[in-house]
């Protein structure tokens, strides 16, 4: 079964691009890393209800997002499905997505983690900040280790 890495964010908003940027880096690195096993890479602007269906058939999931308040360079959190939904389903939390998966698909979601990469700036049209670029390198290295390891 595959590992899913799902990074989201708006590439047009500075460090908000960290999630998609990490996916782009893994996509380039994947051919040289057979030890990662089967990997599915997914990116989008934000988490949406239909993404619950992308979790089907996955062995494990790593969600990746820019984090304004998480420690640098990144933080990893094991996720439990949660009924604690945010105030908007247009920006669903990964935990809420796991809960929706259970209700829509009728089975337990795959084990999942959230990799929050510390971000500093979200200006329109801006590239990644220097801080975010450094943090991205550390996060890419970690994601490679995560894919190589069995959880």
């Amino acid at each position, binding site marked *: 079964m595959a590992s899913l890495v799902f990074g989201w964010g708006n590439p047009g908003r500075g460090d908000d691009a960290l999630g998609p940027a990490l996916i782009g880096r893994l996509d380039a690195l994947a051919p040289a890393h057979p030890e990662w096993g089967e990997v599915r890479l997914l990116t989008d602007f934000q988490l949406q209800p239909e993404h619950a269906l992308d979790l089907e058939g996955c062995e494990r999931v790593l969600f990746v997002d*820019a984090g304004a308040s998480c420690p640098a360079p990144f933080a990893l959190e094991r996720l439990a499905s949660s009924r604690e939904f945010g105030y908007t*389903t247009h920006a669903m939390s990964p935990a809420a997505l796991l809960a929706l998966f259970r*209700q829509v698909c009728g089975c337990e979601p795959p084990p999942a983690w959230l990799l929050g990469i510390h971000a500093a700036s979200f200006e329109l049209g801006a590239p990644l900040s220097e801080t975010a670029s450094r943090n991205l390198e550390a996060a890419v290295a970690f994601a490679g280790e995560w894919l190589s390891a069995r959880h």
Partner: protein
Amino acid sequence: MPFPLETAAHPENSRRVVIEPVSRVEGHGKVTILLDEGNRVREVRLHIVEFRGFEKFIQGRPYWEVPVLVQRLCGICPVSHHLAASKALDIIVGARRLTPSAQKLRRLMHLGQILQSHALHFFHLASPDLLFGFDADPARRNIAGLAAAHPDIARKGVLLRKYGQEIIRMTAGKRVHGTGSVPGGVNRNLSREERRQLAAGIDEVIAWSVEAVGMVKRLFAENARAWEGFGHYRSGFLSLVRADGALDFYDGGLRASDAGGGIVFDHADCQDYHERIHEEVKPWSYMKFPFLVALGAQDGWYRVGPLARVGRCDFLSTPLAEAERLAFKEFDGGAALHAPLAYHWCRMIEMLHAAEGIRELLGDDDLSGTDLLVRGTRALRGVGVLEAPRGTLIHHYRINEDEQVVGANLIVSTTHNNQAMNEAVRRVAMRYLDGRKLTEGLLNHIEVAIRAFDPCLSCATHALGKMPLMAELVDADGSVIDRLAKDG
């Protein structure tokens, strides 16, 4: 001249309630309500709290980059911006008439967008309010509560949206940041195998859409008196119509009516929109206030979106949706034609119309044609107008001889509805909040009124910890008496 309840006569003596951001709408919004010492409503404003600046951002960029760049405006309806920009640039590259294959592929992409956006809004944003009640327990009044109480509805909502996304992926090339539409046409067609895959699921999509229309129609009938009157007012409307008067999401001329139903203009050329629609700037909002020039700013504001399109077109070109349009228009002697909550009903009729339209198109071999691009005499200015899920979307570009964008004006659906949303909020505030002790359930009534328009206030940054929900109660001295916050 301000509208009633737009500006309080003595704001210094008022108590201030802030709902920020409005929940279950796109992006960031804020409502401020000024109450006097007797809790009487004196001022109500819907604010947009983030300035987008996108029109400046794209200046200096080569014009051919624009259809891809503008998708970053919105994470929910990037396809609408992708296509509106392409239509404007069609004019600039001299492609006033696309090939049949290109036009039908764009139309299919657009119908996929309408389907997925309407499904998301109704099933996951609006239906918890409609099924559980506006002042139900907020812990239950969300998609989790919906999935727990009505798992079948929640599941169909997810699958409908997924189907629309598949159409977008196949026609645009990618699920996000697609590149399928280009100035002068499209750069890919659909194979027969792709059409077969999509056609395999469309009958189920139509059946679920019929059920969704039935559900909202039943709910409306069960709550007719309350829902017809909720935030009710009369206004003008604006939408695109086809040459024969049918609703058309992708192309046509502009039709505008006044609050009494009289036609202000009809089949107007979109290239001349700026002669008929002007925008007023108000110091308290970043979002402009468009109005019909012929009626002036005070009387010329209008509504766009499903209620305008379904309520003001002459007919729908697909049979199931047309039957539902007639039922809607005849409901209670036409009482729903101006009701903000009837947006939900019309949205589902449009979802059914889109699904039927998709089935028609999938049987058309032009989708697999190879004549995809045209070019003609170059122009330095172009306007593209279509009906996005939330309403009329206008993209207007000017370029220089070096093919760089030197000017851009975008009027998005939510901007058209700016005054209309403020009107709805004011009426609901007067009806439900005036003179009463505030509760979460009462404040949610305000949000229900805004949510009916499905506004896209500014889809942008959403990183962890960057979208807190805040409600503040501020006294006349500006001191915060109470505050509630949680992360999005």
